[in-house]
């Protein structure tokens, strides 16, 4: 292939291919994450969720996308047309741009930047403009206030999340996403386990970053202040929506890379092999899991009410079988290919687990009021994150001076952060500053 493509373009081919794949897959992925959210929501609420469009609602995202595309494009009368057009564009562009530094597999990365992590953080902070300009362009006092509140929330929690990431960076020693995963492989422990508080702070920060419950006051329907998305309808709104879910996947991707070992297989040290072959048990797991899903879908085929739904379900089962085949085939392929494909599988599995946690949290907790939200960010998370960073610094000194192991050196950090967290939580008892008893 190297002979067909001129040398000057060669370095660009693979990144462009990856970029096209990601940009093409992402809207579909976001749509199916929405379906997943609705199904998980329904499951937690003792109902079924979308069931009609396609078997078990599997074609619902397609129906939604078609509807949104066909909807009338309404622009409020006195809205600033340039900004109205521009704002969702900014949101979506930034959300998609962040994928360029994300490492889904050891070779599956659009650009291995030296400053990969910082790049993603910078792009996320640019995404705030989509919200602020959107609220401004709607020419509604309450949209604007909602947008500014949302932006203030994002900025505050970005700080906390960034500090949590710094603590991991100290351990990894590099900003490149690939190197961070490599460091976890070298140290033999995922940073989520050795720095659990960093993980926790990042989890909370990322929920606030993506405006998800319990931090979704600026977006909630039952609140007085209309959110920044109110005046947007149809395709423009779907851009904001896409940006929100793409952001969710990005923060899940960052969390996976930094805290959950990226594309590393869980139990990387566990090399038990299937007797008689040279394949390890845990390597066979992805293929077996996918095959299980395929068999389950096949078992559901006879239960579908309508023929077309039977066909679609059978197609889904077929798709799962093909994926299982690819995963199994990778077992006998050269190690680079196997690492690539299985790495991608594990990465996606962890990303979905993280997103499942997002959904779970959304449907369990009520919403924070805005001042309580800001108090939590500034007076609990940021001090905790600072203590965490200092603690990790101490741990590094312990490692370098006294050669403590990778996990052991972080135990004092975790204990110190735990102590500070309990102190702050006690301090921060949920007292509403709303009013005193005589209503003053």
């Amino acid at each position, binding site marked *: 292939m190297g002979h067909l493509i001129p040398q*000057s373009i060669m370095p660009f081919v693979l990144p462009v291919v990856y970029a096209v794949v990601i940009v093409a897959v992402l809207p579909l992925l976001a749509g199916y994450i929405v379906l997943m959210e609705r199904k998980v929501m329904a499951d937690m609420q003792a109902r079924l969720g979308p069931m009609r469009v396609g078997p078990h609602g599997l074609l619902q995202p397609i129906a939604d996308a078609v509807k949104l595309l066909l909807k009338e494009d309404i622009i409020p009368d006195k809205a*600033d047309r*340039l*900004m109205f057009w*521009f704002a969702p564009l900014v949101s979506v562009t930034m959300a998609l741009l962040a994928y360029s530094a994300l490492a889904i597999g050891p070779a599956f990365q659009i650009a291995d*930047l*030296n*400053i990969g992590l*910082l*790049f993603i*953080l*910078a*792009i996320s*902070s*640019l995404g*705030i*403009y989509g919200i*602020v*300009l959107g609220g*401004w362009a709607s020419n509604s006092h309450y949209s*604007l206030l909602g947008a*500014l509140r949302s*932006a203030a929330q994002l*900025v505050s929690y970005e700080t906390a999340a960034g500090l949590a990431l710094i603590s991991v960076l100290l351990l990894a020693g590099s*900003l490149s996403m690939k190197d961070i995963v490599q460091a976890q492989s070298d140290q033999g422990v995922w940073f989520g386990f050795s720095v659990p508080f960093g993980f926790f702070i990042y989890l909370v920060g990322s929920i606030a970053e993506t405006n998800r419950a319990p931090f979704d006051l600026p977006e909630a329907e039952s609140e007085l202040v209309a959110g920044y998305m109110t005046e947007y309808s149809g395709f423009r709104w779907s851009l904001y929506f896409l940006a929100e879910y793409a952001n969710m996947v990005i923060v899940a991707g960052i969390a996976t890379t930094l805290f959950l070992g990226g594309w590393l297989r869980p139990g990387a040290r566990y090399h038990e092999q299937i007797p008689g072959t040279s394949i390890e048990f845990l390597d066979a797991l992805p293929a077996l899991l996918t095959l299980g899903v395929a068999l389950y879908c096949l078992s559901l085929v006879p239960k579908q009410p309508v023929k077309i739904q039977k066909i679609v379900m059978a197609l889904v089962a077929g798709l799962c079988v093909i994926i299982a085949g690819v995963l199994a085939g990778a077992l006998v392929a050269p190690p680079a290919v196997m690492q690539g494909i299985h790495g991608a599988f594990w990465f996606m599995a962890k990303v979905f687990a993280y997103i499942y946690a997002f959904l779970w949290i959304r449907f369990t907790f009520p919403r924070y009021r805005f001042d309580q939200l800001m108090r939590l960010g500034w007076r609990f998370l940021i001090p905790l994150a600072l203590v965490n960073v200092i603690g990790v610094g101490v741990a590094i000194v312990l490692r370098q001076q006294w050669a403590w192991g990778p996990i052991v050196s972080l135990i004092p950090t975790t204990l110190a952060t735990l102590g500070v967290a309990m102190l702050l939580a006690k301090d921060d008892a949920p007292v509403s500053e709303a009013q005193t008893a005589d209503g003053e």
Partner: protein
Amino acid sequence: MQTLNQALFIFFAVLAVASAILMVTRRNIVHGAVFLITTLLSTAGIFLLLQAEFLFIVQIILYVGGIMVLFVFVIMLVDLDVSMRLVQFNRQWIVAGALALVLAAQFLFAIWAGRGALRLPAMAAEISPKNTEAVGDALFSHYMLSFEIASILLLVAMIGAVVMAKRRVG
């Protein structure tokens, strides 16, 4: 690769200049702010072309993602009708215009006189791959004092802002 670099440089430079011109000529102040953002982003792009990746990213995170957000907040919260009704041109605009022309002439003369000296060293074939680490090393060894002074300045500014805001509400 050389032509690609040049092409990108021209792209970013034109974008920066055009954004700057658009920024100062907009009536709508929010449009002006957005064009300032694009100017800053183009400058960041130029930094990246110079292989100063840390500067590139910090320009985006701090300038565009922090300071400009603050600008935009203030613009949106301030009552713009009042400022729009203010007189746009000062009475002494003739004098001001003349002085600006003189200044511009001086700049142009300086550039033309020193046009031979605009020779930058050839870009090093081997770029040190660890730009961020190099910046970090320098900050914490040679420029430690300036770094600490800057941090204390920022801390004082933050505390001052909190105190002033509190006084207004409390």
